[in-house]
């Protein structure tokens, strides 16, 4: 039996320990905010935060996070008012929105690590997250805004 803390709640799993965390979250726990975009760590749509690090849940097994703390978009802030989320709304970032949970989790992890990233650092840190709608200019501006105070 694998135990994981997800958004502060204990969850357990006694199925295939190799099951990607993404599908455990989405299909078994019902946390559908984390998205499937590629399954190969190429797009970032499935990004969650494990302890303090951004992780691609599509190539991370449930076993890999046994006993650790996982934060998904649903758990980032109780009212959805994390500075990154607020900045996203202020800048009207999303188009279709499908990539945005992953983008927001990646940006939140970036700011934990580097509270005042430069534009170049933002562009580099966010390069693992694809937005097929092409919201990059606004994502960059929103991360910058979140880092300077919303």
């Amino acid at each position, binding site marked *: 039996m694998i135990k994981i803390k997800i958004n502060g709640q204990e969850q357990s799993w006694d*199925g295939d320990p190799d099951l990607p965390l993404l599908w455990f979250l989405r*299909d078994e726990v019902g946390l559908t905010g984390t998205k*499937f*975009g590629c399954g190969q760590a190429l797009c970032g749509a499935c990004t969650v935060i494990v302890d303090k690090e951004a992780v691609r849940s599509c190539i991370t097994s449930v076993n890999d996070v046994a006993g650790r703390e996982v934060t998904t978009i649903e758990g980032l802030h109780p009212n959805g008012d994390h500075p990154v989320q607020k900045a996203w*709304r202020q800048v009207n970032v999303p*188009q*279709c929105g499908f990539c945005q949970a992953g983008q927001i989790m990646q940006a939140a992890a970036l700011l934990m690590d580097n509270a005042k990233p430069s534009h170049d650092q*933002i562009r580099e840190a966010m390069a693992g997250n694809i937005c097929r709608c092409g919201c*990059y200019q606004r994502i960059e501006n929103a991360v910058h805004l979140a880092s300077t105070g919303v």
Partner: protein
Amino acid sequence: MNFIDNPKKLRGFEKHVRIEKVSRRSILKGLGVTGGFVLAAPVMSRQAFAYETGAGKMPHGVVVDPRVFVAVAPDGIVTIVAHRSEMGTGVRTSLPLIVAEEMEADWSKVKVQQAHGDEVKFGNQDTDGSRSTRHYLIPMRQIGASARIMLEQAAAKRWGVPATEVKAVNHEVVHSASGRKLGFGELAADAAKESLPSVDSLKLKAPKDFRYLTKGQISIVDLHDITTGKAGYGADVRLPGMKYAVIARPPVTGGKLVSFDPADAMKVSGVEKVMQVRGWPWPSKFQPLGGVAVIARNTGAAIKGRDALKIVWDDGPNGKYESVAYRKELEEAARKPGLVVRKEGDADAALKSADKVIVGEYYVPHLAHVSMEPPVAVADVKGDKAEIWAPVQSPGGTREDVAKTLGIPEENVTVNVTLLGGGFGRKSKCDYALEAALLSKELGAPVKVQWTREDDLHNGFLHTVSVERIEAGLDKSGKVIAWRHRSVAPSIASTFAAGTVHQASFELGMGLVDMPFEIANISCENPEAAAYTRIGWFRSVSNIPRAFAVQSMVGEIAQATGRDQKDMLLELIGSPRIVKLASVKDLWNYGEPYDSYPIDTARLRKVVELVAEKGEWGRQVPKGHGLGIAAHRSFVSYIATIVEVAVDDKGKLTIPRVDTAIDCGTFVNPERIQSQIEGAAIMGLSLAKYGEITFKDGKVQQKNYDDFPVIRMDESPLVTNVHIVPPGPDTPPSGVGEPGVPPFAPALINAIFAATGKRIRSLPIGKQLEA
């Protein structure tokens, strides 16, 4: 009052609804299959609104009835139906906002309700062709105005005053003479009993009184949900007892299942069942390809199970499709005369007598949509009833196709439209919903069919592949006197009808026969090309290769004559005029009447001039940088783009700045226009730099975002500026979702030439600059 769910009143607008025998869902969209009935409601009379659109000719036309689209609750909450699909354009906000504007509803008291697929009730729901605002600006205003008048009439009756003395203002009706006021909620029940005003009697707001339209101050309704993970996409639907499925499909279009061994798949933890899925022979529109489904308790187990399947396929007639050889075929066809689809003067003779002939042969490969959300659908089929939840661009078409596929009446099918995680034309084809319906029927349980990214690339409906060959003849003075453009590409029509070798009028009409240049001798030709895979609509469709070819040729002519690119472009566009295309038999014109939406070169010139001014054309740029320009009319909008590129000595590209000017006529939300154009620049850059799907042995060679890359943040333009042309009075609205894409690649390619002296004629750029 509850305007919604009053199906008996549906035909309240009978006098505006005519029943016509025209092509049913014109595959059908313009491919000219006849039979069946369509309800068409041409509500926009010329007298009333100065222009007409093609909306009434779409399957099921337009329904203008507030009782279908608006409900006012006693607590004052106004519910407005969004009947088009949201895939990132903002339409789910924009259309209801138009209604709210006109009915004087306070947007903070408005709830948006997504319509299910029902075109008899809501009118056409095909969210494609950059049509939503174009076709619905006036109908939505009329719906809002009708609702407002009904509320005003109810208040006037209550107070016993003439209706002319009352006025709806921001969610209340006021009688200023007596200072009395009643909220919309208080009037709801009475207003529902009022008779519907006639469309012709409606007086719409003057633009100066707009509170929301054209202001760009209202954010999309899903913004909070998107940023908190609550927004519901197709894959997020969960039903009690739902099974999770992935399907192994034939790797070659037209291939068939020979045999499969489920033993190893069944050993995977969580896998419950392996079963065959019915397939249809190619081509059969959007019907499933068939294959083997793995059913499991979660998607991860289903994918792992599928990896363990042993399958033998028969590749069928397309097993030899190979991209290198196919390109040669297209090139050879482009070097010989083909079906003439436009002819003015005598281009052949003029080319012979020309002082100089410039030849450009341009290649654009197959492209895949790779919308961020891969295709996915949930179905629950019980007996002769089916309910679907899916991210579909065509909810009405999906309903029809599910009914046909299951052999049940359309009324028994409910299609719930989720948010779409991107569409770009892929989700106009509902094959994934049909797969889910078939599986659910057989399993007797709700099923979610999830496509992986690999499935999306291997079994999609690709953008065509094309060779565009242009020969331009110049006289001694450098004036272009002849233009011969041959376009060779497999047609989307091949997905509907076997043996198709010519492009359909809607494809020819995307930048070939509607080319706006003022040249005395023009010949447009369409040599034959057969298809060997499923071809489908991709954001802006044939405009991608056409704008690439035509606008690159402008650059080439400028280059050959030592002229400035922008001056050359304006000279070719020529005098401000309405282009006459007498020789074109079937000018599609995006389905719009030509007198409302003619090719107006004054508007094309205007966007070129505007982008040149705002984008500082001719500015000094550092060494290794270059500026390029391109302009194109598509989806009846006019767009011009300037790209600044920097190419370093290793051939690495960066894009310091992009400027785009757009004239999309009367618009609703400039903020969403901006976001569409910003996104279009990224998509244009993606396809120019990387976009290429290739075939070998009939199979797509790319698998995922690693070998079919798209632009990421670190390579995206540093800044994209959008300049919107203010509309003239009564300028009809035109497309926004797609037109931004076509001019990007040629502007970039022209910029690369300016920076490096290298002329790229084959996309993607790939490693071409590295040598």
